[in-house]
């Protein structure tokens, strides 16, 4: 039939050579993930990033595109991670306004939480005999993903594994957090929010915002401060401890 059209394979070679294919794949998978997330009443289990990652993995598997080639195209999206990290200063700055002199206790709890996060994850994983290549990916997993990936590069961990563990941690924290907080009879919204933000970063923060605005503001502050503190302290702690 279509003898006057160029063969499909020729169009294909042209398309897969340009970054467009990877970009379209990434953006449409994300849009689909967002739609599912909204339809599910923002259920943390229907996390849009998780859905998008699964879809892109299947997509590049089906068209037989090597990961390196996909990343080459999608790196335009990846590049903005650094800019996004810088913009985190804006919610942190706004969060400072609602502090009411709680800075001391917030920093104390942040330090305790950050240490707990690293020690329990690495300790448990080593105790269960997890492969050492994976253990390093756990070090920064409670820090917001864009910062966690920057930390990963400095502690010889895989940024990919760190991002995956960070997203998983965020989802687990958003799902389980309220049960832990209820069991411990934590009632103040600012305490509940801050704990979620420190432990489950961005995903915990959007969960907190969907429950209560004060909880959300404190979660956002907890995530931001954990990001800064993590980036300053984790590389030194790892160099000294591992």
């Amino acid at each position, binding site marked *: 039939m279509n003898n006057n059209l160029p063969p499909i394979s020729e169009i294909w070679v042209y398309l897969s050579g340009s970054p467009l294919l990877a970009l379209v794949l990434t953006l449409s998978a*994300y849009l689909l993930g967002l739609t599912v997330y909204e339809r599910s009443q923002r259920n943390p289990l229907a996390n849009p990033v998780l859905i*998008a990652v699964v879809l892109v993995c299947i997509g590049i598997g089906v068209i037989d595109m090597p990961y390196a080639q996909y990343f080459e195209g999608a790196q335009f999206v990846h590049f903005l991670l650094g800019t996004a990290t810088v913009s985190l200063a*804006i919610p942190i700055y706004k969060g400072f306004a609602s502090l009411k002199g*709680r800075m001391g*206790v917030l920093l104390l709890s942040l330090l305790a939480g950050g240490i707990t996060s690293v020690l329990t994850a690495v300790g448990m994983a080593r105790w269960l005999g997890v492969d050492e290549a994976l253990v390093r990916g756990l070090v920064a997993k409670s820090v917001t993903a*864009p910062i966690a990936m920057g930390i990963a*590069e400095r502690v010889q961990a895989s940024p990919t594994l760190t991002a995956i563990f960070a997203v998983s941690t965020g989802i687990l924290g958003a799902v389980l957090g309220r049960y*832990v*907080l209820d069991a411990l009879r934590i009632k103040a919204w600012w305490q509940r929010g801050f704990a979620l933000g420190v432990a489950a970063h*961005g995903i915990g923060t959007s969960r907190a915002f969907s429950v209560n605005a004060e909880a959300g503001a404190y979660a956002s502050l907890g995530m931001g401060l954990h990001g800064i503190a993590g980036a300053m302290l984790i590389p030194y702690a790892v160099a000294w401890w591992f």
Partner: protein
Amino acid sequence: MIQGLVQLFLFQALGELLSKFALPFIPGPVLGLVLLLAFLALRGHVPASMDGVGSSILQHLGLLFIPASVGVVLYLPLLQANAWAITAALVLSVVATVAVVALVLKLFAKKDSTP
């Protein structure tokens, strides 16, 4: 909007320079974040165009780590072999972290201030 983007890039670039030449252990964008925070504290407010650009980027923060996360295809066999242990470590860690942060806040909050 462009103005806000240029300002953010500027702080990112300053952070990268600082990381490269003075503090190699800390990621450049984080230093950019700290510099921007200091700048905002000095100015006393967030410039409107920067606020607009920053909010739109942060609103879709998740999109930005998809390309790196898709790299998980390279680690699937390793992850499958350790799936249960990793899940156990992640669950324990997040539950313990939420609990420790919340308990420290509850125990020490009254001395610090009252809600």
